[in-house]
C-alpha cells in the first residue's frame, strides 16, 4: 500500500523529469487523435483546444502582467460576432481574410476598453472590465438588427483557405480539428515567445512592482495597453474558432459567466505559466461536459468545484505538480542542484 502511494506521488515528478518525451508523445497522439477515437471525442478535443487558447490569452493579462480582468469574454464574444458577421453577411469564409480582420478588430476593441479601464487598478480594474464586457453583452442582446438579439447570428459556415483552384474548405471534422490544433500550437508558441521576450519581462516587472518600472523609465500604461491588446486579439482568435465550431455566435459568449469561467480555468490550472491554463481549460471543459450530461444541475456542481479549488488549491494544478517536484527533490538532495529554478516555481514549464 505504501509503495503504491509512493509510486503515485512520484508519477507527476516522472512526468516533469521526462517532460520533453511526454510532450512529444502527447503531440504525436494529438496528430493521430481523430482517427483513433469516436467523433464525440473529436468535438470534445476541439472544445478544449479552443478554450485553451482563450485561457492562455487571459493568462498573459492575469498571470504575466498582473491585470485581473473579469471581462475577457468581451473579446472572445467580439471575435465570434465579427466572424459570424463577416461570414453570414459578406460570405467571406477565407481564413486569410477573416483571421487578420478579427485579430485587428478585437485588438482595437481591447485598446479602446483598455484606454479607459487601465487607469484603475486592483479590484477597481476587475469591476470596470466586468462592467464594460457586460455592456457589449447588452448591446448584443438589444441591437438585434445587427447582432440578431438573443438568438445570436446562426448559420456560420465552415472556414476555407487559399485562392481559386488551390482553395480548401475545412468541411470534414478531422480537417477542422487539425485547423484548431495548428491554431492552438501557434498561439502557444507565439505567447511563449512573447512572455520570454524583453516585452514579456517588462510585463512581469509591471506585475511585480509597477512603481519601480515607472521609475526605471517604462511607460507602464502603454505596456499594459499592449498586453491587453495582445490578450484581446488571441481571445478573439478563440472566439473565431468557437463561432466556426458551434456554427453560431451567441450572446452567451459575451456573458459574465464566460469571463468567470475562463478566469477559473487560469486559476485551476495555475496562473503565470502557459501550460497551466491549458490544463485548466481541459479540466473545466471536460468536467462541465461530463457533469452536464449527467445532471441538469451542473452549474451548482461547477460552482461547488470552483469554491473548493479556491479554498484548497490556491496555486492550481501546476502548483500542485511543482510542489510534488519540490518534495521529490528535497528527498534526493543530489538532484536538487537548481535552487534558482525551484524558488521560481511558476516557471516550471520552461523546461
Amino acid at each position, binding site marked *: 500500500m505504501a509503495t503504491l502511494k509512493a509510486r503515485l506521488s512520484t508519477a507527476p515528478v516522472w512526468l516533469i523529469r521526462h517532460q520533453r518525451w511526454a510532450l512529444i508523445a502527447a503531440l504525436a497522439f494529438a496528430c493521430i487523435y481523430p482517427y483513433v477515437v469516436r467523433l464525440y471525442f473529436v468535438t470534445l478535443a476541439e472544445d478544449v483546444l479552443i478554450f485553451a487558447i482563450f485561457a492562455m490569452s487571459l493568462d498573459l493579462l492575469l498571470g504575466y502582467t498582473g491585470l485581473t480582468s*473579469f471581462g475577457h469574454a468581451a473579446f472572445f464574444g467580439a471575435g465570434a460576432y465579427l466572424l459570424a458577421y463577416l461570414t453570414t453577411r459578406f460570405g467571406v469564409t477565407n481564413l486569410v481574410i477573416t483571421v487578420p480582420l478579427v485579430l485587428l478588430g478585437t485588438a482595437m476593441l481591447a485598446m479602446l476598453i483598455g484606454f479607459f479601464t487601465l487607469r484603475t487598478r486592483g479590484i*477597481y480594474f*476587475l469591476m*470596470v472590465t466586468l462592467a464594460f464586457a457586460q455592456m457589449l453583452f447588452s*448591446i448584443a442582446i*438589444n441591437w438585434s438588427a445587427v447582432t440578431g438579439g438573443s438568438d445570436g447570428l446562426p448559420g456560420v459556415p465552415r472556414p476555407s483557405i487559399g485562392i481559386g483552384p488551390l482553395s480548401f474548405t475545412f468541411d470534414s471534422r478531422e480537417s477542422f480539428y487539425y485547423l484548431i490544433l495548428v491554431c492552438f500550437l501557434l498561439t502557444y508558441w507565439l505567447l511563449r515567445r512573447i512572455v520570454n521576450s524583453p516585452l514579456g519581462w517588462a510585463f512581469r516587472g509591471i506585475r511585480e512592482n509597477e512603481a519601480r518600472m515607472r521609475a526605471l523609465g517604462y511607460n507602464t500604461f502603454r505596456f499594459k495597453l499592449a498586453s491587453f491588446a495582445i490578450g484581446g486579439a488571441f481571445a478573439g482568435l478563440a472566439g473565431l474558432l468557437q463561432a466556426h465550431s458551434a456554427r453560431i455566435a451567441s450572446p452567451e459568449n459575451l456573458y459574465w459567466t464566460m469571463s468567470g469561467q475562463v478566469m477559473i480555468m487560469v*486559476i485551476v490550472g495555475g496562473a503565470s505559466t502557459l501550460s497551466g491554463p491549458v490544463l485548466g481549460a481541459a479540466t473545466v471543459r471536460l468536467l462541465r461536459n461530463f457533469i452536464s450530461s449527467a445532471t441538469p444541475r451542473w*452549474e451548482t456542481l461547477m460552482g461547488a468545484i470552483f469554491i473548493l479549488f*479556491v479554498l484548497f488549491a490556491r496555486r492550481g494544478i501546476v502548483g500542485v505538480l511543482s510542489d510534488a517536484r519540490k518534495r521529490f527533490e528535497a528527498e534526493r538532495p543530489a538532484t536538487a542542484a537548481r535552487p534558482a529554478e525551484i524558488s521560481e516555481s511558476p516557471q516550471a514549464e520552461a523546461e
Partner: protein
Amino acid sequence: MEAFITQLLNGLVTSMLLFIVAAGLSLIFGLMDVINLAHGAFYLLGGYVALTVMEQSGEFWRALIYAPLIVALLGLIIEVVFLRRLYGRHRHLEQVLLMFGVALIVTDFIRATWGAFVESVPNPELLSGHVTIFNVQYPVYRLSLIGFGLMLAFLLWLFIERTRLGAIVRAGVSDAQMVGGLGIDVQRVFAAMFAFGTALAALAGVVGAPIFSLYPGLDSEVLILALVVVVIGGLGTLKGAFYGSLVIGLADTFGKAALPEFSRFLLFAVMAAVLLIRPTGLFGQKGG
C-alpha cells in the same frame, strides 16, 4: 411635459432601487474589501423568496420582513464558513472567485426551484391605484418606493454617522486591524455587515419585484448596474452610492426613452467619462 415628469419619476424609482442594492455592495467593500459578485443573485433570491411568502400568506409586509432575513442568514453562513478564510490584502481574486461560485449556485438554485420564466409580482394592495401629481397619473406604489428609498438612505446615514456600531464600521473602513487592536471583535462586525449587506440586496429584490418582475438573468443586470454605480460614486461610501444611483437611474431611464437600443451605452459612456476624470469615483478615497 407630462411625459418628462413621468420619466423623471420613473428614473427616481430606478435610482432608489439601485441605491438600496449599491449601498449593500459598497458597505461590504468598504469594510472588508470584498467585491460581492453574488450581490445580484441575492437580489433575485430575495425577490423569489418574497414571491413564495406572498403566495403562502398573501401579505406583502410579511415578505418584506421574511425575505431579507432569510437571505441575510444565507449571507451569514457564507461569510462564516467560506469568506472568512480568505480575508487578506492579496486575496481579492480568490474572494471574487468564491463569490462567483456562490452566484452560480444561487442562480442555479433559483432556476431549479422557481423555473426560468418571467414571474410578475402584483403591487401590494394597500399601495395599489394611482395619484395625480403635476397633471400626471402615477402609481402609488412607485411613488412610495421613492419615499422608501429616501427614508432608507436617511436611516443608513444615521446608522453610519450617529451610532456606536456605525462608528466602528467607519473605523473599520479606514483600518480594520487598528479597530481589532482596540479590543473590538472585528470578525463579528464583518459577519454582521456582510449579512446586513446581503439583506439590503434582498430587500431591494422584494420592493423591486412588482416593478421589474423576476427572471433568471436579472441578477447580472442588477449586479452590473450596482457595480457601475459604485464605480461612479466611489467604493465604500454611502454618499457615493446615493449620488451614483441618481446619475445612473436617471441616465438609464431617459436613455431608454430616447435611444432604446443603446441605453446601456449611455451608462457606460458616463462611467468612462468618470474614469477619465476621477478614476476613484466622484466621492471615493479608496483604491484607484
